[in-house]
């Protein structure tokens, strides 16, 4: 396969290419921020007809030495902020441009087969067009990024980043609406903040896809969505606008101290069941009743209706064994698809979970062992996975400090506690993508999938390794070691 340097124009989700810009200040984490909301570019882009030119030459293949912003070669300027300011806001560019990005890895974990040594990944117009040994990839220029280890972009199977903001002040906390215990109509796309600093933060560690949205803490707190960790607006970022309806069983959803229901486990289940029964009747009447007798539209029941019809899974956060059992009971009664979330004591109910065919997004491996989580185990992910239950890992919801975990580290801890390296990597790539229903786009390095790649200067799970590059939709969004 011959990869041409000059490619046909493209259009990327209607907003044109992403131009990576640098902030002119060092970030707290030792690197320079590569956020899309920076104010300076490192180098004035070459342009033809007002659009940046594609890559022409590169000087070497030192890891991270070169990169291509939408096909534009940029000289490495580590440790300094050079180049004239040439601010290009994302929305300013409706122009289309060709783009090819080439990534080299000493080891490439495709998650679609065994790892490939000395391999390259080629992305064209945002999609992967080649993955394989360097020897058979007849590329006509050096790679834009090189690293010891290349993996698919990391998929965080459950986060609240973009909702629970870094400041932890009311104006940036949109993860939980507590006016009512059951509000499945709350859409995640109406609240996701693409400019949230923690989005760029987790992206720096290789996280390219987030399943995020309404947090645990109410019986049904609202919907979740799947986004890429770049994009100017939610429309640019979104991969799946409605991914799940988020529910919580257990004391976290109890409101007794506020004098509200539910105050007990029994009441919580009664309220959920009653609401689902209402939604069943609503669906039936909407479908069968004569036009003038149809019930008025009801957003709450519509959202639950989508769960009942199998369009949306109910993601149930439940930690203690009796709450997990209740989740399975609810799934059985209403014949709904559920995803178990958290599931600290899932190791007690492996047979039941497996028999029900339910995937589990296991709590962060290093979650604090207190309250409902007091019996959590580092080995839960391994035990479930080895029993044949689909498992993904998550960064979860954090109410205080740190404001988010990094799912890469949680997978690392699982890899140190029973999962093999590749099982742990799968739990934050392909298996996470499958559970979320986005494996046709992300989660593995395969031709035709999105060009989402993470690069590391060693074993990604070692604390002392750095993430040296991140590519999303074929665009280098970060290339400073984190």
């Amino acid at each position, binding site marked *: 396969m011959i990869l041409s340097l000059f490619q046909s124009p493209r259009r990327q989700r209607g907003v044109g290419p992403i131009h990576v810009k640098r902030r002119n200040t060092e970030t707290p984490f030792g690197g320079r921020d590569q956020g899309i909301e920076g104010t300076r570019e490192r180098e004035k882009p070459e342009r033809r007809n007002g659009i940046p030119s594609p890559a022409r030459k590169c000087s070497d293949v030192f890891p991270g030495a070169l990169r291509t912003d939408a096909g534009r070669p940029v000289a490495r300027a580590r440790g300094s902020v050079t180049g004239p300011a040439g601010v290009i806001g994302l929305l300013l560019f409706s122009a289309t441009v060709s783009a090819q990005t080439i990534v080299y890895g000493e080891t490439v974990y495709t998650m679609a087969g065994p790892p490939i040594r000395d391999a390259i990944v080629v992305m064209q117009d945002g999609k992967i067009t080649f993955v394989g040994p360097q020897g058979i990839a007849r590329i006509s220029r050096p790679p834009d990024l090189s690293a010891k280890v290349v993996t698919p972009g990391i998929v965080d199977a459950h986060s609240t980043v973009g909702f629970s903001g870094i400041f932890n002040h009311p104006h940036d906390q949109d993860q939980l609406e507590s006016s009512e215990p059951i509000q499945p109509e709350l859409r995640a796309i109406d609240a996701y903040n693409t400019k949230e600093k923690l989005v760029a933060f*987790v992206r720096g560690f290789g996280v390219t896809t987030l399943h995020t949205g309404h947090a645990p803490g109410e019986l049904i707190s609202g919907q979740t969505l799947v986004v890429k960790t770049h994009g100017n607006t939610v429309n640019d970022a979104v991969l799946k606008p409605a991914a799940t309806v988020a529910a919580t069983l257990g004391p976290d959803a109890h409101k007794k101290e506020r004098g509200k229901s539910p105050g007990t486990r029994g009441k919580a289940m009664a309220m959920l069941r009653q609401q689902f029964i209402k939604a069943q009747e609503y669906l039936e009447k909407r479908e069968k009743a004569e036009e003038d007798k149809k019930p008025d539209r009801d957003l709450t029941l519509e959202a639950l209706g989508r769960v009942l019809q199998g369009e949306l899974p109910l993601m149930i956060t439940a930690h203690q064994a009796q709450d997990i059992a209740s989740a399975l009971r609810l799934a059985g009664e209403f014949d709904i698809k559920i995803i178990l979330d958290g599931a600290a004591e899932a190791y007690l109910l492996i047979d039941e979970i497996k028999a029900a065919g339910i995937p589990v997004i296991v709590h962060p491996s290093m979650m604090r*062992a207190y309250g409902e989580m007091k019996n959590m185990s580092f080995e839960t992910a391994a035990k479930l996975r080895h029993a044949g239950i689909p498992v993904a890992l998550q960064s979860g919801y954090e109410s205080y400090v740190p404001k*988010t975990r990094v799912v890469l580290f949680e997978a690392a801890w699982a*890899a140190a506690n029973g999962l093999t390296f590749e099982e742990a990597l799968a739990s934050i790539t392909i298996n996470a993508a499958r559970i979320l229903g986005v494996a046709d786009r992300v989660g593995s390095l395969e031709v035709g999938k999105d060009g989402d790649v993470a690069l590391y200067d060693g074993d990604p799970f070692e604390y002392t390794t750095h993430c040296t590059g991140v590519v999303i939709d074929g665009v280098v969004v970060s290339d400073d070691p984190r």
Partner: protein
Amino acid sequence: MKQTTFAVGIVFAVTGCAARGQTAVDGGIQAFVGARIVPIDAATIERGVLVIEGGKIAAVGAADAIEIPAGAARVDVTGKTIMPGMVDTHNHIGGIGGGDSSAPIQPDVRIYDSLNPLDAGFRRAVAGGLTTLNIMPGSGHLLSGQTVYVKLRKERLTIEDMFIRDEGGKPMGGMKMANGTNSMRDKPFPGTRAKSAALVREQYVKAQEYRDKLARAGDDVTKKPARDIGLEALVAAMAGDKIVHHHTHRHDDIMTVIRVSQEFGFRVVLHHVSDGWKVADEIAAAGVPCSIILVDSPGGKLEALDVAYKTGGILERAGAKVAFHTDDWITDSRVFFRSAALGVRGGMSRAAALRALTLSGAEMLDLDDRVGSLTPGKDADFIILSGDPLSVYTKVEQTWVEGEKVFDRSNPEDYLHAVGGYGAGDATEPYFCCFEHAEDY
């Protein structure tokens, strides 16, 4: 009365130990042979020997340089790594409760009057390789009480079993203070930073006057001020007998701590020090040590917006002394190594990072003559690891305190606390030598 209580406590502890010690295999001379030894205060020994006797370290050195005493029990630890038990300078295990929010400054409160030694957190701590802890009240007060330095000894039924005592037999500990937003609350708490500093200064001025009155009174009981246990504790801090452990995040708050500590002459360790990288030269110039925490991400509160992995490295290069702490439950004691490793990720040297888990922390507690390094004469507090301390895959296999094994990953009960699982969250049963472990009969 107080003295009597202590005496009873000591007698109980001593007799208890003696009775339980009969079944321990750990009393005699033991030689751990073949491990990679990281003494911290000396170069790493690739194939070393660690000899312990009577709860103390007797010898450390290369396998071919140390003569193993006759009669020593030999333990082959080839392929393992041995380093000192870790010192956590800031920890909240034990279901503790310090100041009660009735006033912003409560130096009279002793944290050890509230601590539950059976808390499951202590089992997790030894599983993580921690052997010495500074247990502190929280940061919701300008001064939330006196902290306590403890050892995670095998028998932990009462706090007296855990105390580290000074030469006079008194339990050792410091003083917990805080500034910034955590201690700014509704009245009677301060509402601003300046008010916070003013309230603290006012209290220390009072303590100065109390101290001076006491000195002037000499032996004249009629002139002595009424005994005030709060002011007494502050006087001890100003005399350097109690180190002030000061929660502080923002760069200006850090400078305030330094300013106030210099005014009153108390010895201070800065804790958390989120913005430390911004004022590293100033911290180093003041000679103030830093106990830092590394958390995954910045934020969660405004003063932690710039928390950074690079802080340790920047402070190290500036010449400041750095230790890490767990702040357990903010981070779990079982992942304490991660702090050091992330510090290295952020630019710290390996040597400084490992020292920051051990000897540097010991120095910040005035315990460096007893713990923090594998040095002959120091307490036999050490951990046996499966590999490189900074690797995520490495396991703490055994933890030893004062010559006794307090954690063994191969013991199912210890394993439960090391990785978690059903029952791991419950407060543990009191330890009695002969009932829990069949092998102890």
